[in-house]
């Protein structure tokens, strides 16, 4: 873990606690703040895939584990 957990926060990609609140309460806001609102990205919350059409409505909850995946080269 790279930082201590704030009181109200989500864990991003198993390494960073990010504080959530009024300004940052939805998944699409989190992705925008992380510069991840791109093509080729998939997101899971607590190991459940959240489809793109639900990103703007998806509420972030304290202790959610957010996994953000992107396409890379591979065989």
């Amino acid at each position, binding site marked *: 873990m790279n930082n201590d957990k704030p009181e109200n926060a989500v864990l*991003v*990609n*198993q390494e*960073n606690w990010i504080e959530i609140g009024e300004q940052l309460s939805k998944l699409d806001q989190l992705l925008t703040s*992380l*510069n*991840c609102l791109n*093509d*080729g*990205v*998939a*997101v*899971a919350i607590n*190991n459940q*895939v959240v*489809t*793109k059409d639900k990103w703007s409505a998806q509420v972030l909850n304290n202790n959610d584990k957010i*996994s*953000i*995946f*992107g*396409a*890379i*080269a*591979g*065989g």
Partner: protein
Amino acid sequence: MSDLLTIAGHQFSSRLFTGTGKFCDKDTMMAALVASKSQLVTMALKRIDTKGQSDDILAPLLANNMKLLPNTSGAKTAEDAIFAARLTREALGTNWVKLEIHPDPKYLMPDAIETLKAAEVLCKEGFIVLPYIHADPVLAKRLEQVGCAAVMPLGAPIGSNKGLVSRDFLEIIIEQANVPVIVDAGIGAPSHAALAMEMGADAVLVNTAMAVSPDPVAMSKAFAMAVEAGRNAYIAGLGQVNDNAIATSPLTAFLD
């Protein structure tokens, strides 16, 4: 002559599929893939480093009209692979998936039991599943029966460049299959690819041999030619193998 390969209703004029891994940089990768004339390329998925810049390889692949075949690399169980497939569908907007489950990091041997389990679930969910498997004819049939669109038996361990070590079993798979057979992994030289095609494989998937060559573009071209030559030879029909010599020139009367 039109000799198209059809997988799940999608037609390919090139029977050389390629991976995108291990190239020294993005530009070399793209130049090599274009030289290979490949129309289906594999990709992987990884947790994004939210602090670093990622190298976008998706845009140039799509700009070159390449169909994406995301893999489930990193999956050690059926459950992992199903999760990975759902993620790749979401990330890349395709329901095609190269199902690969290899828990053992030394030889990267595909886990037959987990692969069959995952294939069954993913086929039911509407995925076009192309499973990476050992050259196991029984497993290939079982995967066909649960709805896989093709099978991808290995020639040799991934990245080993050893060629068709599994040749005799590949022949059985090819003989028995009702879905396309794509020989994947271990193909280290154009001659290996040509041999697979001469044997009647429907396609081959090559990555390491191109990517690690000192000249990936030239090597990709060589693979494209080899796959085409092997396919043409298969269609033409190879001559019978004989134990004795059978003269090519007339042996009559010249020295009598």
